[in-house]
């Protein structure tokens, strides 16, 4: 072979080698190349392998960084590939704690599986890690902003989109455009001029898809103060059942009101405490009326085995269970039920027991796992803790301070032991640190002096 014919190949190899050296010397550039050139094509395994070259960027999260690149590639594929998702989760496993990148990777894998709630929790957890691996937190924030925008939760987009350190050009554009269209102000940010909006759109990730939003924003006049005109009163819409038609018959009236609230969409927005009190009082009137006498008469006519008072108790229990479920779905505090008479009080007891039971079950599970030192992967630990926290916070929101005080001693004892185990034995500082802070905030809220002292020591504040 003529040696001269090898010269172009050698030159090409030299250029490729030079480019590789440049990329290795400047890791952000390498990461950019992996994300745009490999992950964007949905190549999961090559993304993971190449991202292992970004040693400095993921110094404290050697498993998380490559998994993050792989998770980005997984989401770039047209359809979810469960085999690849499982393989990626395997990359996250192993001894030692994972960092923000690993948590975000787990969040993206959950998102790819369609588990949006779990993904949301994990993305939020990423902000609990220190400023290390900023790019992971930027990706988490981008995902959260996209999730909020897709759901139409623009208030959230405006809040998250301009968060210092983690805002990206795309999230900033969405936040500023939303603020302009909604005629609202952003926190600590001026309103954007037309030129500013165009510039942000130019810098955004996908100008074609963002163009409609830009046009809508530019068509809205810029506001300089947060004062908004009073919204016009909503037009009254006809209800599916009009309980007013049955005012003369307490039982039919209660059933109509019950059916009405059972069919209302977006119950949490529409059912207010006073509506709930009205419903409970309607049922009190229905059961106080001739209900038992009517049931007795029908029972006799039908020759039932079921005693009329037992039938009534069964019906009453069904009503109370449904009232409790309505209250829970509408996120109305238990106090509203307690104030609304005997049926309301029975429903409140059922709901309270349900809320406490849920927290107790999760808390006991955490306790036994801590005692037996049965560890899970970092991501699973976060998931389990988030499930317990959500149940506790829901019970606290509905049950008020009384339920919060009732739950806190056990929660404090078991969660604190759990956090100590994570901190001392497993070095999971990214998970246990926020747990101590959460326990301190709860201890202060319920006024538990002993717990406050202990958690201040754990958190390191005086």
């Amino acid at each position, binding site marked *: 072979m003529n040696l001269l014919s090898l010269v172009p190949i050698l030159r090409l190899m030299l250029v490729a080698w030079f480019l590789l050296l440049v990329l290795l010397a400047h890791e952000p550039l390498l990461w950019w190349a992996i994300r745009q050139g490999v992950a964007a094509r949905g190549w999961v395994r090559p993304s993971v392998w190449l991202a292992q070259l970004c040693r400095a960027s993921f110094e404290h999260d050697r498993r998380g960084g490559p998994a993050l690149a792989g998770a980005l590639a997984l989401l770039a594929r047209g359809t979810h590939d469960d085999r690849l998702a499982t393989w990626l989760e395997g990359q996250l496993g192993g001894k030692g704690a994972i960092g923000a990148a690993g948590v975000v990777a787990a969040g993206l894998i959950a998102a790819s599986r369609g588990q949006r709630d779990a993904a949301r929790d994990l993305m939020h957890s990423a902000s609990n890690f220190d400023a290390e691996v900023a790019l992971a937190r930027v990706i988490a924030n981008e995902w959260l902003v996209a999730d909020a*925008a897709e759901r139409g939760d623009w208030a959230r987009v405006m809040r998250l989109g301009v968060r210092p350190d983690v805002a990206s050009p795309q999230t900033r554009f*969405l936040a500023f455009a939303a603020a302009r269209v909604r005629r609202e102000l952003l926190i600590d940010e001026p309103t954007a001029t037309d030129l500013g909006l165009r510039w942000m759109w130019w810098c955004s990730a996908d100008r074609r898809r963002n163009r409609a939003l830009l046009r809508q924003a530019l068509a809205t006049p810029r506001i300089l103060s947060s004062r908004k005109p009073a919204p016009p009163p909503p037009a009254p819409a006809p209800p599916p059942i009009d309980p007013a038609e049955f005012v003369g018959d307490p039982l039919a009236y209660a059933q109509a009101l019950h059916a009405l609230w059972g069919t209302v969409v977006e119950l949490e927005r529409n059912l207010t405490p006073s509506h709930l009190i009205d419903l409970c009082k309607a049922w009190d009137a229905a059961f106080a009326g001739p209900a038992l006498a009517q049931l007795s008469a029908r029972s006799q006519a039908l020759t039932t085995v079921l005693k009329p008072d037992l039938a009534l108790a069964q019906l009453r229990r069904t009503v109370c*269970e449904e009232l409790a479920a309505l209250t829970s779905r509408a996120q109305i505090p238990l106090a509203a039920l307690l104030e609304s008479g005997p049926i309301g009080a029975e429903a409140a007891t059922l709901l309270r027991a349900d809320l406490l039971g849920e927290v107790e079950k999760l808390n006991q599970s955490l306790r036994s796992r801590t005692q037996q030192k049965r560890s899970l992967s970092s991501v699973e630990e976060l998931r389990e803790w988030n499930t317990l926290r959500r149940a506790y916070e829901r019970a606290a929101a509905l049950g008020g301070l009384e339920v919060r005080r009732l739950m806190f001693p056990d929660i404090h004892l078991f969660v604190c032991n759990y956090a100590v185990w994570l901190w001392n034995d497993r070095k999971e500082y990214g998970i246990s640190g926020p747990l101590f802070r959460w326990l301190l905030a709860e201890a202060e809220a319920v006024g538990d002096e002993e717990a406050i002292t202990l958690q201040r020591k754990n958190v390191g504040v005086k």
Partner: protein
Amino acid sequence: MSAPADAQRRLAENPFYVLGLRPECGRLDVEREGQKLLGMLELGLKSAASYMTPLGPQPRSAERVRTAMAELRSPDRRLLHEFWARLPPRPEPPKPPEPPKPEHDLDPFPDAFAAHGWRRP
């Protein structure tokens, strides 16, 4: 704990509404009406294909009719169903009210993930 969906199902699938009867009807009425509806359904008659409830029309099937007849044959079950069939059926209930939108609100952005460069949420 029962969900509000149970309350809806209880009204929509109450045997009295399925058979088009009122709670005061006799046992023979239940059998007669049930057999008549089963025959009509077998012939594919349109008039038997749906029934009215307080929440509006519901599709009627032979299986639902047989279940309704069986439920009303048990005096104990019938007593409970009578309690929940207090409301008269309605022909066409209006749609549930839509919550009011703020004056200057934005619609959801279905391309939000794609605009960030992700093909899927």
